[in-house]
């Protein structure tokens, strides 16, 4: 995923001010932002749901503008905080529709739905409206539906907030070595064990993108304060290196 010069304002707030970013294949990247709407906005743009004012982005060399057959969209799945589908749909209907829209034939649909039911523990409430199962069920169904198309890039915006932490971590350790996962969160500490890299968007630009291990090396927690402090440290280091050069 290559993002260059992305700009977008919401109201009077310029949340993305020429954002440049590269995300390698297979990365599990946590994106946090100051102000906190920028990370969610970035995912909305990458999902093709929100239009950027300026800038472009590519996925595996394919730009949105080049997308004639919908192939770009099939490579990307986006999970909004609340699932996004109609609350009167049952988990079975959501999964069936998602699998059908992903273009799977009947046998493949049955296989994928069976897998999803087992992995996400949907068996007991498979045919009841999602709204009756509460937000945790809606979020689990949303994640299962997002994965129906076997996307290369998964964009998760505050995912599974209503799910208990151990279960949440298990579900968000999404298999697939070449699957890139971008996760926008306002609560970085809750993403420990899920992500391998951390990025900070500050004032609309990329302020930091490092492996999560660097926080540990500097004895900093995986929190907004810890990520902000690491960004300051690296900025100071760069300025020091420039001064000594």
């Amino acid at each position, binding site marked *: 995923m290559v993002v260059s010069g992305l700009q977008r304002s919401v109201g009077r707030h310029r949340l993305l001010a020429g954002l440049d970013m590269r995300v390698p294949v297979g990365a599990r990247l946590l994106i946090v932002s100051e102000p906190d709407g920028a990370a969610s906005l970035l995912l909305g743009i990458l999902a*093709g*749901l929100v239009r950027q004012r300026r800038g472009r982005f590519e996925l595996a060399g394919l730009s949105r503008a080049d997308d004639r057959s919908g192939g770009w969209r099939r490579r990307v799945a986006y999970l909004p905080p609340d*699932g996004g589908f109609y609350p009167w749909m049952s988990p079975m209907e959501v999964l069936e529709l998602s699998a059908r*829209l992903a273009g799977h034939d009947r046998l493949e649909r049955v296989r994928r739905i069976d897998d999803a039911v087992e992995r996400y523990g949907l068996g007991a409430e498979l045919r009841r409206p999602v709204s009756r199962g509460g937000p945790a069920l809606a979020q689990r169904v949303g994640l299962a539906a997002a994965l129906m198309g076997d996307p290369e890039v998964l964009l998760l915006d505050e995912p599974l907030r209503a799910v208990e932490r151990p279960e949440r971590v298990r579900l968000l350790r999404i298999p697939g070595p070449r699957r890139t996962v971008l996760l926008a969160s306002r609560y970085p500490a809750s993403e420990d064990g899920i992500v391998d890299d951390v990025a900070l968007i500050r004032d609309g630009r990329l302020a930091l993108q490092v492996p999560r291990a660097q926080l540990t090396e500097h004895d900093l927690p995986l929190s907004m304060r810890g990520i902000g402090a690491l960004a300051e440290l690296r900025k100071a280091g760069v300025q020091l290196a420039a001064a000594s050069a």
Partner: protein
Amino acid sequence: MTRFLAVAGLALRELWISFRLLLLVALFLLTALPASLLRGPSDDPLAAVTAPLQPFAIALSAAISVAAGVAAGTLATERRRGTAGWLAGRAVPRSSIVVGWFAAFAVVLLLGIIPAAGLAWLTLGPASETIDPVAFAVTVASAAAVGLAAVAAGLLFGAWLGVRPGMVLSGVLAAAVLVPAAAPGIAALAAAPAPGAPFALLADLADASRPIGDSVLAGGLALAGGAGLLILASALMSRADL
């Protein structure tokens, strides 16, 4: 085609579950009510024929205006709450979302207008013998075509504006164009290519010189205009944030 059918099916179920389908069909059925209530004895045989249809024409144009407002509010709501985004995120083209919703509203319109027209015809009683039933059916079909165009206009506003502004603007605009055409005295609104021409014809069917030809022309123009509005709505939807 799969995607369009999926959206149309979801849209119909959403309209059914939210009672909008029932309310709209009931509203259309109610349009036949003024015709039966207002019909009374008259010394003028021509008035006996035309009087029952004018209230029906006015009520039908008003109901179509409400349907246009509901269409606008519905699409704006779909955008705001993220259900349109959920579909768009699953490789459903945004134009299919607009056309799918249009198809769902077209079904609702037909479910409402056909029985309403039947009821209105029944309320004519003996006067129905002096009105050509084919002319009546063609004029009602032409009014339904205008209804489809009004829904397309509603979807355009829904793709562009928020829920309340979209509902109010499309409903008021449709009412301003269609309802006065059914009322007597505004000749400019009563002839094609004015969108309200079918309602003017319906209101004064016994007096119309070429009701079938004029209705077909007005209906054809409405369908062409509706198609244009639908294309515009799709274009606006493709630029909208979901």
